[in-house]
């Protein structure tokens, strides 16, 4: 099901309480439309990871509002009972390293998500293979992760993030371990996929190589986000 992007309003996250309390997120406002790829950049300790964990429903914000597609998922408290299912079905994750499951082949690494959602194995695998075609790793479908190159592994990881057709994908430094050429290739793929599947993609990065490629960028500093227009450079 294709959603309508993600909207975040006044999101806050405080760790601890009393004198030792730390406000990791003070005021986060974001809006990412379906088919859009935005950059989230900021220095270390600015709150990027905390924001990503809040958006990924891994930790609970302290206050604010999050809307995923048409549904409010957080409004000063979770509005969704099953966060695990929310992460599985409606949020895609792409990590800094591919983190593929080493004991599953490429197809099952990707097909695992729809399988976890209860889809039959054959259908799940078919879904995975369709994505492989789009990501040009179809020929590696039966390979084990250890047999893939770094770029191939990252494309498989992107396929895993996309396979359940989530309305939003959170990409955490997806180009960090890649050289310029491959990093730009990954961004190109993400843009392609965002358009093709009407998915909102938030790319957390401080990779100077790819920052100019975003049309919109959210800067986060001391837990506060600020929207900026990006260069939106043609990276073809």
């Amino acid at each position, binding site marked *: 099901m294709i959603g309508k992007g993600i909207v975040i309003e006044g999101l806050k996250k405080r760790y601890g309480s009393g004198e030792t309390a730390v406000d990791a997120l003070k005021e986060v406002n974001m809006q990412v439309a379906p088919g859009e790829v935005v950059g989230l950049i900021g220095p270390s300790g600015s709150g*990027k*990871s*905390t924001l*990503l*964990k809040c958006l*990924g429903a*891994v*930790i609970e914000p302290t206050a604010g509002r999050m809307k995923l597609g048409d549904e409010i998922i957080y409004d000063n408290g979770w509005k969704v009972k099953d966060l*695990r*299912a*929310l*992460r*599985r*079905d409606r949020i895609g*994750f792409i*990590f*800094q390293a591919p*983190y593929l*499951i*080493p*004991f*599953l082949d490429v197809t*099952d690494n990707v097909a*695992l*998500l729809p*399988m*976890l*959602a209860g889809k039959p*194995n054959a259908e799940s695998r078919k879904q995975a293979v369709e994505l492989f075609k789009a990501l040009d790793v179809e020929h590696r479908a039966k390979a*084990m992760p250890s047999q893939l190159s770094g770029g191939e592994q990252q494309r498989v990881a992107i396929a*895993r993030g996309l396979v359940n057709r989530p309305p939003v994908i959170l990409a*955490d*430094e997806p180009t960090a371990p890649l050289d310029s050429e491959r990093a730009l290739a990954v961004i190109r793929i993400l843009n392609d996929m965002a358009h093709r599947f009407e998915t909102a993609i938030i790319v957390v990065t401080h990779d100077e190589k790819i920052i100019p490629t975003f049309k919109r960028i959210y800067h986060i500093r001391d837990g506060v986000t600020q929207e900026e227009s990006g260069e939106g450079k043609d990276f073809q």
Partner: protein
Amino acid sequence: MISLAGRDIMHAWGKFVLTGLGLGLLIGVTLSMAGIYRGMVDDARALLDNSGADLWVVQKDTLGPYAEPSSLYDDLWRSIRGMPGVARAANVTYLTMQVRQGEWDVRAMVTGITAGEPGTPGWPPYLVAGRQITRGHYEAVADIATGFRLGDQFQIRRNHYTVVGLTRRMVSSNGDPMIFIPLKDASEAQFLKDNDAIHQQRRRTVETPAFNRPGIPDLLDEVIASQSTNPYVNAVLVQIKSGYVASDVADSIRRWQRLQVYDRIQMEQILVGKLIATSAKQIGMFLVILSVVSAAIVAFIIYTLTLGKIREIAVLKLIGTKNRTIAGMILQQAIALGLIGFVVGKITATLWAPIFPKYVLLEPLDSVRGFVAVVIICVLSSFIAIRAALKVDPAEAIGG
């Protein structure tokens, strides 16, 4: 849904199989320990079965003849034979000793049996080669576990014996193979002193004025003669007539002969409950320790395997894998390890059981119990790893 545990095992099957082999050897030792205990019980039962007796008449207030020494006069059997319900009564002696067999000493229970025919209490009930003892002296029937062959000669005390028959599975409650020789020879072997001791005793007797009286010339000879004869046996084995109840006949012998009488059940209780009780406890302790060690090994292995997958588990949790799927994966791996271990253990225990010097009886029911115990141990052992896996924060998959 695919089997995550199965895929993980297949991915690292070498490590898994080697670990299973190691665990299997430990399980093999555990099964063998149980088999050793079963073998001891079976040896005790075989001893009772092979004696052909319904009742054991022994010295009063003793647990003889197997658990304690017992001494009876050798003519008692006649009065027992005459009692109502007694079909057959025969003297028997038992002496466990080292017997030279070729280059080696073999520990054997030398059994003195009365002259008679097959079926006489105390006689070996069947032979696998040769014949039964037909002469009153210097013939022997040996269990094949002694290593003797037909025609072999061996020495007990001063006498030499020829093996005329071979039997099988005739063992003492300690599992020592039995050697049957004529009762007179066995009594001599047990009670007769060596030449020097006899010479010393005669000298003492001659020098004792009470025995050496010139006025009674035959007294000294009679005393010396009585000292060199042996009127003792260890027990009288009794077979009862059909239609009689063993306990009634036993009561009758107790009352009229003032002797200790045990029936089959009582004798089995003495052997299993008293004679091998300490060994059984010892083996029980070993079993407990081995089980704990096995559990610790499985727990350690599964825990280590799980710790090696922390990042993958974090990713699985982040992408929405249920806790029970992750717990199931670890549990299945622990059980799979136990299954490999059990199969290896069962095979190794079966292969090395015949090599043990004593009888190792691997009962199918013990294997079933062992299998259940292995599964339970593996399940319990996996809990530590499951706990560690469930504590993994999915946020660990996200950097920073």
